[in-house]
C-alpha cells in the first residue's frame, strides 16, 4: 500500500474505523480521514488520530499465534443461511 494520505488508528486489528456500537467515534475517524484531503501534506503522509484503546491490548497482539491456517477455496459464509440466500 502506498496511499497518498493516510490516517493511522492505533487500535487492534479489525477496528480500522473504530469500535463497534460507537457511531460518534466512527464518525470522528472517518471525518478526520476525509479532511486530510484538504490538509497540506506531502505525498504518503501518515497522520495518527488522537485516540487510544481503553485497555491494554498490545502485548497480546505482539504475542499472537502466527501459525498458518488452511485457506479453503470454497465460499466461506458467515452464516449457513447466507448460502441459501445466494443460491
Amino acid at each position, binding site marked *: *500500500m*502506498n*496511499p*497518498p*494520505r493516510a490516517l*493511522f488508528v*492505533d487500535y*487492534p*486489528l*479489525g*477496528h*480500522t*474505523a*473504530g*469500535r*463497534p*456500537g460507537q*457511531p460518534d467515534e*466512527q*464518525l470522528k*475517524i*472517518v*471525518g478526520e*480521514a*476525509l*479532511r486530510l*484531503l*484538504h490538509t497540506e*501534506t*506531502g*505525498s*504518503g503522509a501518515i497522520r495518527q488520530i488522537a485516540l*487510544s484503546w481503553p*485497555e*491494554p491490548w*498490545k502485548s497480546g*497482539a*505482539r504475542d499472537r499465534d*502466527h*501459525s*498458518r*491456517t488452511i*485457506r*479453503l*477455496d*470454497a*465460499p*466461506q*459464509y*458467515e*452464516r449457513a443461511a*447466507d*448460502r441459501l*440466500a*445466494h443460491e
Partner: protein
Amino acid sequence: MSDPSVYDPEPVDYIAQTRQTYSRLGYEPYRWATHGRSVELARPEKPLSLCRVALVASGGIYRVGQVAFHHRDDTSHRKIPGNTHTDDLRISHFAYDTTAARRDPNVVFPIEVLRRLASDGTIGSLAPDALSFMGGIYSQRRVKEELIPALAADLAAMAADVVLLVPV
C-alpha cells in the same frame, strides 16, 4: 505522562512479526509489494461537500444474497449498494478477528458513517456502490492484474471524486 501499562504509544510492529513468522515456518522471507516512487498527490478540485465519495474495504464484507469470499487468493470483489442496511452485511475473513465487525460492520465498512456525512452535507454524496474484497491474497501479480483494474474500472464508472480505503 500516561501510565504505560494502560497506554503504550509504541505501534505493534507487524512487519517484524511477519518476518519472524516466515523465518520460524522455514519460508522464504516475505516479499512486500514496494513502489519505486511516491504517488503523485492529487489535489481535490472542489470542497468535500461537493465530492462523491466511494468506499473500498478489504475486510471481506459481502451482502446477504451475494456469494461469500473464499480464503485462498480470492481476487473477486463485491459491489454493495450504498443504501444497504447493516443487518444485511456479513463478514468472511481469515486473517483478523471478525467479532467486532460481525457485531457492527461499520468498524471495517463505515457505510452508515458515510451516510451520516452525506446527510449532514459534509460530503456531497456517496457513490452508488461501495466495493469490498478479501485482503489476504498472496500473489502481487494477481492483485495487480485482476483485482486492482476491476476496482479502478468500477470507481471510474461511478465517477467517484474521492476514494476512502479502509484496510484491515
